[in-house]
């Protein structure tokens, strides 16, 4: 610490001695120390300004890019939401219950249009997977009705397969008489309960 301070002072003394012994030098032609310092300072300031400008430019660019990205994402999200909404709306329109006669699992003439609509929906939306839920009215035993509901679900699945819907996109489940829509003991209620429901999976 101490030695490092002594060395520059000694060097300066030596330098001054040398100057004093020589003839007076001609007037210097290069820039003065002050000029050099001023130039250096200006250079540094210019550089700093350039850096600042570059940084500002970069930030502006990044912000613009971010905004563009956000706008694109928003647009994509809106588009996806719209597609999802269209999908849901199409599903809601297409996935309508079909009904059966007592102790029967034959697809009724009048329900064929519903099944065609479901098949069309499945063709339009390749992502759609459905669960077919077979149900029965309250008359008959719990276990026989589970088998009957199973047969009703399988009947709709087989029919949809003939309309070109891949079996891998459908699953079936039977609730027998365990999940009635209507609980009164009359035909107008029973006929609602003898049904297949179609649900997105």
């Amino acid at each position, binding site marked *: 610490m101490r030695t490092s301070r002594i060395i520059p002072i000694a060097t300066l003394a030596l330098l001054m001695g040398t100057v004093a012994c020589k003839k007076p030098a001609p007037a210097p032609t290069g820039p003065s120390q002050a000029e050099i310092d001023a130039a250096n300072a200006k250079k540094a300031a210019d550089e700093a300004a350039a850096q600042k400008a570059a940084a500002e430019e970069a930030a502006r660019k990044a912000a613009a890019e971010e905004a563009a990205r956000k706008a694109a994402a928003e647009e994509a999200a809106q588009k996806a939401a719209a597609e999802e909404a269209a999908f849901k709306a199409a599903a809601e329109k297409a996935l309508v219950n079909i009904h059966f006669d007592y102790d029967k699992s034959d697809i009724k003439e009048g329900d064929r249009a519903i099944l065609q609509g479901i098949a069309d929906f499945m063709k339009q939306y390749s992502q759609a997977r459905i669960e077919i839920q077979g149900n029965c009215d309250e008359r008959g035993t*719990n276990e*026989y009705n*589970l088998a009957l509901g*199973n047969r009703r679900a399988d009947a709709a699945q*087989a029919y949809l397969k003939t309309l070109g819907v891949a079996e891998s996109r459908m699953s079936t489940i039977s609730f027998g008489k365990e999940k009635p829509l209507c609980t009164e003991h009359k035909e107008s209620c029973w006929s609602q309960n003898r049904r297949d429901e179609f649900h997105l999976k």
Partner: protein
Amino acid sequence: MMRALFRQLFCAITVLASVGLAAQQTEVVLSSTSGAKLVLAVPPPVLSGVDQATADAQFTAVLQRDLDESGVFGLLKDKLPTATDPSSYGAWKDAGAQWLLLCKLTRTASGDCQLDASAIDTAAGKAVFTKPYKADRRVPIRRLAHALSDDLVLQLTGVRGVASSRIVFVRQLHPGVKEVFQVDRDGANVLQLTHNDSLTLAPSVAQDGRLAFVTYKAGAPEIWGQRTRDGAQVRLYAAPGGALVSSPAWSPDGKRLAFVQGDRRGNTDIMVMDLATGRVHRLTDGGGINTEPTWNPDGTQIAFTSDREGGPQVFLMQSDGSNVRRLTSEGTYNASPAWSPSGAMIAYVSRFEGRFDLFIYKLGEGKSYQITNGVNTSESPSWSPDERRLVFTSDRLGTMQLFTTDLAGLQVVRLSDLTNCQSPVWTRAR
């Protein structure tokens, strides 16, 4: 406004009146069944350390109901002598009592309970049955009444009574949520056995008390149950691809489980799983609906419901699937077979004029007998372990509730006031 109010009031009164009438009819039927049975008189028990109200409600009423529904005793209720010493036996005999049941109920200082019971044959003037019962203070007094009733039936018939038995059944808690419950044979001590928070159906109870049932808690139905007597409820079987499974039925030896599986082409088949190996094989071959398997007592045959010849009918087969033959011939809808504990009878339901009634097919005679008689619907028969009664569900008082009936269909009794019940199973094992 006023008229509407009156109409509502009138409806309410009508409902009350019809319920009251139904109860009254049951009462009338009750007393008419005492004819051909051994007539028993039960004077009030001698009490020590037990208050009268507790004894009346928890012991005497319970014992009388047990004996009345045992099917083998008729209770003498009128003109009872007051004395119960040996010199009074003649008076009891003259009053019509064949047996006089003397009970002494004692609560000790520690809170334990003792019942001393003896049945006197009034003709011979001596005891035909004497037994002391001791119960820890945590045991309800009604259990002593059940034990005594079961012993008296055993003494008279050689087969233990079923007062101490239980019913396992399914009850709806909310739409779409059903759980398995158990209840004492007289409607006391309701206990929820499953907590699946989903559809849980079709309980079966093995001879050692192990439970099996179907639950939809994973989405597709699966068979769950116990591998050991007090073991946790675990998955026993799930069909490939989430296909339908239903109707589990323990074999009498508890080593196999019959059940039903869908084939995805509209058919359902009876399957059997060996519990030890998990190996499953199919007994029926894909022709229509086959469901509701029930084993005969030695496990060599299975009765089941099939629509292979049109509507549902009851069929029999060997437990390897061979020798399928149709059992029921009359009617267009026969289902829900339940093989009796002795193997001699099969109870089932039959639809007649739009309603379901209980029937019994006597295998020895090759004939069917109608048990219930067109009072709304009667479904899901299950035999009492002593083969004297059936438990079933009926909506005769509005919603589906548990009832029992004797085999003559004369003594129909509501088991409990629980609503939305289905699939009862009568067991001694729980």
